[in-house]
Structures are given as C-alpha cells and as structure tokens.
C-alpha cells in the first residue's frame, strides 16, 4: 500500500536540477504530501519567484511517482514564503561538501554599503573571503572568492 512515508522516501530521490546533491525536502521546497479527493497532493513552494527550476522539479516529482505507479497533483504555494531556515541540517552539509557555502544565519544587510556577511570558504574554511557579486549563477546564490586559496565559490544566500 502507498503511504505518506513511502511517497516521502521516493521523493527523497528527487533533487534540485541546479544543485543535484540536494533533495527537494533538504531544500525546504517540499511543503506537504497528503491524500485528498482520491489522489496524492504534493505541495511545493518556489525559492525565488522566477526560479526556472520549479517546472523541472514539478515534472521530476510526477515522473518519480509514476515510476511507482502513483498518479499525483503538484500544487505551488507562495505563502508562507520560502526561507533558507527551511534548509535541513543534512542539506547544509551536502551543500558545503559540494563546494557551495551554506547560508550564514544572517540576511545580507539592507543598510547601504554595510559590511558584508562573513562567509567561510567551503574548500579551505578560511574566513577571509570577499563578495564578488550579490547575484550569482542562480537567483538563490551570491558569488564569492576566497582570499586565501583563491577559489571562487557560490554562496547560498540567506533569505528570511
């Protein structure tokens, strides 16, 4: 019998297409799984409004469940709005191992020209890094560089 637990364990294999080490649950994008009106209803929320990966995630969820013979509906909700607080502990570790600095628990200050958040280098752990740009390779990341090992790296920016 298909249970919520089995659905969740199958969905554990569905990953963010841009960050293939993170499952949708790790990312906090997967918001709910329930059986309603004779059908499984999966609820997801976007990280950013224009994130082009959302459609792919939706398709991947449906495809994964189909492999197990389950038909489902995917709903997109906007509120409560996604925050990096929903990133799981294991997700944070997987990000770092993948070379992306996980979000520091501090939103980039809205004060103009404020001192930037200290983001340790995911490669050498040095705290001497600099922000190259607030906007990185995807909407959810900023672009940093380590001043010690020189490695350029992505920072998964804090959003609250």
């Amino acid at each position, binding site marked *: 019998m298909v249970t919520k637990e089995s659905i969740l364990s199958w969905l554990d294999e569905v990953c963010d297409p841009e960050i293939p080490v993170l499952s949708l649950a790790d990312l906090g994008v997967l918001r709910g799984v329930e059986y309603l009106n004779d059908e499984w209803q999966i609820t997801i929320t*976007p990280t*950013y*409004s*224009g*994130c*082009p990966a959302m459609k792919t995630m939706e398709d991947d969820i449906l495809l994964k469940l189909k492999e197990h013979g389950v038909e489902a509906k995917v709903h997109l*909700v*906007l*509120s*409560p*709005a*996604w925050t990096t607080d929903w990133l799981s502990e294991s997700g944070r570790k997987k990000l770092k191992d993948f070379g992306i600095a996980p979000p520091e628990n501090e939103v*980039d200050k*809205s004060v*103009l*020209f404020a001192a930037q958040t200290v983001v340790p280098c995911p490669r050498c752990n040095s705290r001497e890094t600099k922000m*190259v*740009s*607030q*906007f*990185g*390779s995807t*909407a959810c990341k900023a*672009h940093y560089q380590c001043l010690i090992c020189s490695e350029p790296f992505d920072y998964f920016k804090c*959003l*609250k």
Partner: protein
Amino acid sequence: MKNEDLYNYVLRLGDDSLILGQRLGEWCGHGPILEEDIAMTNISLDLIGQAMSLLDYAGVLDGQGKDHDALAFLRFENEYRNALLLEQPNGDFANTMMRQFLFDAFRKPLYEKLLESTDMQIAAIAEKSLKETRYHLKHTSEWVIRLGDGTDESHQRAQTALDLLWRYTDELFFQTEEDTTLISLGMVPSMSEIKAEWSKTVLSVLEEATLVIPTNNWQFEGGRRGMHSEHLGFLLADLQYMQRAYPNMKW
C-alpha cells in the same frame, strides 16, 4: 466591489513587472561587466516570475480562463497598463540603474503594504516578492550612489538619467476612482502612503549620490490608461513574436 476593479489593479502590477523584466533582459550578454550582466538578468528573472504570479491571478479575477501566457503574449499595446517609466529604453548603464532604482523604491513599500491585504492571494504574492525586491533596491541604491558620487563622467551620466526619467515618476502613484473601493476594503494601500515612503528613500539616496532633482517638474502619464510611448510596440514585437508567428506553439 467588482472583480473587474481588482483585476485592473493586479494587471497594473503584473504589467509593470513584465515590461521592466523584459527591458532588463535585453542586457543579457551586453552588461558592462560580467557580474552586472548576471545581476541584471537575475533581477529580470525575479520580475518575470512575479509577473507570472500576478498575471495568473489577474486571469483568475477576469474569469475567462486566461493564464499569464495569454495575458503576456496576446494583448495589444493599448491593453497594457504598465507605467511609462518601465517601457523606456535601457540607454546606458546609469540610465538602466536609475530607472530600476526609481521603481524599486516604489515597489518595496507597495509590497510591504500589500502584505497586509485582505485579499489572501495578493498578500501571498507580496510576501514572496518583497524578499526579492529588498535585494533589488539595495543593489540599485548602491549603484546610484556609486555612479552619482563617482567620477565626473559617471556623475554626469547619472544626472542625465535622472533628468530624463524624473518626468515619468508621478505616474507610478496613479490611482483610479475604483481603487478607493479597494482601499476601503483593506485590499490595497492608498498611493499617498506609498509616495511618502518612496520620496523618503529617493531623496536620501539622491542626496548621498550628489544628484539634483530637476527643477522642471513637468510629468507625463498615460501608460496606466493604455496610452503608451512608441517604445512599447517595439518591445512587444520582440516579446510576443513567437506566439504571434506560431499561434499556440509550446516549447
């Protein structure tokens, strides 16, 4: 309250986001430096995403089964309700940053107020969009200051941009008779509140940027009523080409 009133309001929000998102996207591959190329297209993407949510909701209110694609690709210029500011050509980098700054300073307080809307869907879209808009405003404020208080040339370019764009700013605060009903129902804020917040941000950033507000305060309007500059037609020709050339095509 008629659904039509709320439809018109949401359409204005959606069209502002869509048209500015399309304009910014034109910088893709042409940014002055790689980081700014990426920043502008990131912001563009946020705006297009917000436009999708807003236009989808406008479609629901309209009740004729139109989604964001139908509203974006199958309307003519005079059916668009975006403010004239947002369809103005990109010009140089200073001009693009100034246009974006004047808009972000308007959008942030607007979303902050819409967060309290009695309309759940508007409040949800505002909640999502506000987080992104804060990043945008910070980015553009810093650029306006950096350019204005920079070299002689960057100062002059930023001042020229301000002189050119200032005449389109009043229109952002356009409000109709019907809006007053929405305001009394707590669905949307009064534009006078938003203008007060906007002025505060704009005046403080411009002062720090050593830029001067033009003394000639002649203001243009028309976009909110569907009367656009000729620029919008060219922009839509680009935006709508595929759907017009190959109706109903999907990819």
